[in-house]
């Protein structure tokens, strides 16, 4: 199986004709992702990368019936793009854009409730179900289909984890970047719930980091859900100083909240296997899975 996307997923690219989108849409097509259309206001009627371009998401939905949208637009119109996708009926929206103002994201979250749409990101590399569909900007070739689900707040660190897993012979069911911003769409807990019901997934690796409380919420979820699969976690930022923003807008210890140590304690107490050396994500996951099987 996999979660959220598979080989049947029909993908729309918002902002398709932009430079970054053009590059990554090309890579997605190479990977075999079913891109069906693009949207760029004012360029409706053109074709780009062989795909039809529409002025509005509504028109694209009517003609091409996509079920997932991936967004590459400038940050100040990012919130609008997400809202437009949700309103047009897309149930999964992946926002790559970095730098969307935080108040805009609060408005987006309220908006999404009205439409039962799921958001991945913003400021995310996207997600991939190896061998089926890549909806994001991650290097496709390092992935293999397999039993490990990955949920991560990071980009390159996820690639690192994926490569380690692939190197020890463990493929991935779906690998998802939830995004590095303070306010994001789906987080660890909701995605754990999806992996729970996915037959392909045998273990889930969480890659968290300082800031916010997504990891703590995951711990609360796991504590009360008798989760049937092993969950492992690496939390980045054990060396991070308080009050400093480490690259990601969301990676900051504020008012004493959101430290890596606190997150690790909470996850450990919820039965999660903590990985304290980020170079051993692959090895430790393999150990856990071999013990289980």
């Amino acid at each position, binding site marked *: 199986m996999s979660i959220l996307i598979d080989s049947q997923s029909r993908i729309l690219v918002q902002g398709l004709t932009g430079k970054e989108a053009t590059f990554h849409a090309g890579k997605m097509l190479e990977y075999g992702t079913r891109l069906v259309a693009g949207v760029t206001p004012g360029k409706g009627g053109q074709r780009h990368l062989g795909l039809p371009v529409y002025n509005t998401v509504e028109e694209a939905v009517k003609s091409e019936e996509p079920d997932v949208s991936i967004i590459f637009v400038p940050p100040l119109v990012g919130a609008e793009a997400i809202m437009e996708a949700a309103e047009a009926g897309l149930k999964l929206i992946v926002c790559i854009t970095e730098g969307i103002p*935080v*108040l805009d994201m609060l408005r987006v979250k309220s908006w999404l409730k009205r439409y039962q749409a799921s958001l991945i990101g913003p400021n995310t590399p996207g997600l991939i179900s190896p061998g089926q569909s890549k909806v994001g900007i991650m290097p496709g070739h390092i992935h293999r289909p397999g039993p490990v689900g990955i949920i991560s707040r*990071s980009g390159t660190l996820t690639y690192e984890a994926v490569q380690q897993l692939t190197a020890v012979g463990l493929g991935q069911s779906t690998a998802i970047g939830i995004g590095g911003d303070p306010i994001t769409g789906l987080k660890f807990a909701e995605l754990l719930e999806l992996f729970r019901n996915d037959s392909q997934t045998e273990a889930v690796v969480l890659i968290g980091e300082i800031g916010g409380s997504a990891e703590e919420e995951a711990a609360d979820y796991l504590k009360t859900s008798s989760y049937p699969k092993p969950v492992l976690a690496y939390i980045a930022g054990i060396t991070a100083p308080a009050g400093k923003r480490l690259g*990601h807008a969301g990676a900051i210890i504020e008012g004493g909240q959101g430290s890596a140590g606190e997150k690790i304690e909470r996850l450990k107490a919820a039965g999660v296997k903590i990985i304290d050396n980020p170079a051993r994500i692959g090895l430790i996951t393999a150990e856990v899975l071999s013990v289980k099987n």
Partner: protein
Amino acid sequence: MLIHEFQAKEFLRRLDVNIPEGRLAATPAEAIQAARELASPVVLKAQVLAGGRGKAGGILRADNPEEAQKLAAGLLGSHLATAQTGGQGLPVFRLLVEKAIQPKKEFYVGLCVDRKNENLAVLASSRGGIEIEQLSASCPESVKKIGFYPDEGLKLFEARRLAYFLKLEESSVRDFVHLLQKLTRFFIDHDLKLLEINPLALTADGKLTALDARMEFDDCSLPRHPELAALRDESQENELEREARKYGLNYIKMDGQIGCLVNGAGLAMATMDIVKHFGGRPANFLDIGGGVTEEAVSRAFEILLSDDQVISALINIFGGIVRCDLVARGVVKAAHSRSLKKPVVVRLEGTNVAEGRKILEDSGLPFTFALDFERAARLAVELSGVRI
């Protein structure tokens, strides 16, 4: 982006919020002049972008102009190290000289983005003057929080509820509600992330007066508020951090010996963590980002090397969008220009890895190559003089 107290108070003044009468002083002469004009005991407040100034000696009372001049001479040009600044502290270039005010009561009022609840929150406490984190920890029942949404704003009844929680007299309830309405409107219209008035004083004449003010704007929103960008005070940033920012680099100076150059924030944190895992101490966080240029990589490596505390360096690149050859060229350029003598461990992975490695090897510079993340980290730690 944090702004200074005096800048925040200027915004409050425009909102018709009461603030103490005051003057900005950049020299002791200006301070004595200000104290004379204010014709009363004054408070001198060091304008640095950090909290905890009071305890650190950055807020001083002067009973007469001469004392003001003397104290100003001591503060101006000095560095003020508070609990929030780290060891070196921040330079004091300006003082806010204000008429000293004797409050009857002091409150805390703050507005912030509440990540967990995904809305905005207003917090109030009748125990003003204390940091809110401390207050929430030591005396949570003295703090009341109300959440609201940016499109809806704070309702009158919610503001009133806080006023009654603070046990304000009826005559002040209306003022307080009015104040909160103005602050929330300002917060939303200007894309703030944090706005604190601490303390908010109730003075003898029954007025609510903002004795201190702290405002932080959302950097992401600055492009739509061009008037705010001019408020940035670069003098308050670490020189290396400021230089890095110019090139779009995320660099945070730390106190270790191993310089790290990484692409991606998560991998950069993980690189620091693994250095510590093997007993080393990272000298910095450095994420060169996804859209980096050769020039920026070169500057990044120069910045890293210019930190005298750095003994060894660790370059950890997982090429995706970023190409290893581009990074290699930037690194070689910097190494040449700084006549590199420190040991540098390099781990390259992903896009154009072969080309990158070749460029480094052909440079004739003393790079040490490691095949994976763990070996790279161990080597860098050992080269910094730590025995593993």
